[in-house]
């Protein structure tokens, strides 16, 4: 069956690969400050997770072999590692996009990519989207699920405006800048909590896009929630709809039930697929949420979350599998 793979990772192994795309000022800064890329090691501990491929030949060897995908969307998370110097963050984002184009997009017509942007400056994100977004090989703007301010906040709306003007969607990806623990309280003490932690954070972001009226302003925007799971979606929507009925006056621009905005505007990648192993419970999940309409396939190479997806696909009809494996992505990204 055809597939469009919505989340495959690539990353420069070190700043050396980005140097050709950075000014000599930044090269000196990186050298003097001892800034190193660590492959987002707190998210993908090198002892247990394979590093993302840093060149086309490793990528093609692993990903573009059998079965051959029709398209692959590359997500380079290196931008998530940058610290808060907004100028550095913007410069590195540009460098990454240039590197991805030259190293990957130029080499294979099946490859697509996310536009990496600064996550500390909406202005700079807009500039970068304008700089590279018209290139049809870029299909979405990559945002980290962890943020200082929820992504739906009005301060971020220029990013969505620029994205749509450039024909781009938004990819909301697990993890983000390391810093004080991203929880409601304080530090986590285990990787397990951090790994799971992307899910509650993604849920909060989903709420924000709807309540802040992002989809009222940008009604053709789609957000692909990537590597944050999806089995949590239905209960969240039950609660969101119920609470909205009581306090809708706080957000009167939300004209329909929140769940309707969510199923229309969000897609969720299939990795990780953390599912019940009992077929009855799995069947129930398929009743509770619209899997064929809202999921979109991703291998998440080289990250391995187990094989929950195959259990799910077994329960779907041929047509439903087609939608998940490539149809939804084709529609969202305009890939013929």
């Amino acid at each position: 069956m055809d597939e469009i793979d919505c989340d495959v990772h690539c990353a420069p192994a070190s700043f050396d690969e980005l140097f050709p795309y950075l000014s000599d000022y930044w090269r000196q800064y990186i050298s003097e400050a001892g800034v190193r890329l660590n492959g987002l090691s707190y998210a993908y501990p090198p002892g247990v997770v394979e590093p993302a491929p840093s060149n086309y030949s490793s990528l093609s060897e692993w990903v573009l072999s059998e079965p051959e995908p029709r398209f692959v969307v590359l997500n380079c998370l290196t931008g998530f590692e940058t610290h808060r110097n907004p100028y550095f963050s913007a410069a590195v984002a540009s460098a990454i996009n240039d590197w991805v184009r030259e190293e990957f997009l130029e080499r294979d017509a099946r490859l697509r990519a996310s536009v990496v942007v600064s996550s500390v400056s909406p202005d700079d994100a807009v500039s970068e989207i304008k700089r590279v977004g018209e290139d049809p090989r870029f299909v979405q703007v990559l945002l980290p699920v962890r943020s200082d301010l929820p992504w739906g906040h009005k301060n971020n709306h220029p990013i969505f405006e620029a994205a749509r003007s450039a024909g781009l969607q938004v990819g909301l990806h697990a993890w983000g800048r390391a810093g004080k623990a991203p929880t409601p309280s304080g530090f986590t003490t285990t990787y397990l909590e951090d790994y799971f932690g992307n899910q509650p954070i993604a849920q909060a972001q989903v709420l924000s896009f709807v309540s802040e009226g992002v989809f009222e302003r940008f009604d053709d925007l789609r957000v692909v929630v990537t590597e944050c799971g999806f089995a949590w979606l239905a209960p969240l929507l039950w609660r969101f709809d119920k609470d909205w009925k009581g306090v809708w006056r706080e957000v009167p621009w939300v004209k329909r039930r929140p769940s309707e905005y969510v199923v229309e505007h969000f897609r969720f990648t299939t990795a990780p697929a953390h599912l019940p192993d009992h077929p009855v419970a799995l069947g129930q999940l398929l009743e509770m949420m619209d899997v064929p309409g809202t999921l979109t396939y991703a291998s998440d190479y080289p990250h391995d979350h187990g094989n929950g997806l195959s259990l799910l696909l077994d329960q779907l009809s041929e047509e439903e599998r087609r939608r998940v494996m490539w149809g939804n992505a084709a529609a969202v990204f305009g890939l013929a």
Partner: protein
Amino acid sequence: MRVVVAPLRSFPSGERRIVEVGGRSIGVFRVGESFFGIRNRCPHQGGPLCLGHLLGDAVADGPGRARLSEDPLRIACPWHGWEYDLDTGQSFMGTASPGVRSYGVELSPGASLCDELHPAPPRKRIPGPYVAETFEVNVEDEYVVLHA
């Protein structure tokens, strides 16, 4: 059943009365020269609907651009705040489609997919999920009369 609620002159605009009729509690409201009757029981979880706040509409043509409108008048349940049109009993928190379904794409081989994202239904409030029971109230010979 005709129930005399009060003499007109002692029921000014802006006030309400709760009356018991045949085991049902019903709220009678006067707004200007109009009268409304609505069951004092929220269809959601049975709260005393007619003790709630009477509110006009809040509309917004975009995020942050909210304003009040006098119409339609709604009664908000004093518990969860679910609101019902005082005249028709209709609530407007419904869903455009039964069950939650995405607006997916039907694909045909070789078709161009670029603009295939189906347009969503227009963004306006959808009736539902409940309708509160309403009653006719009129003025007869200077008395406010509820028909329940």
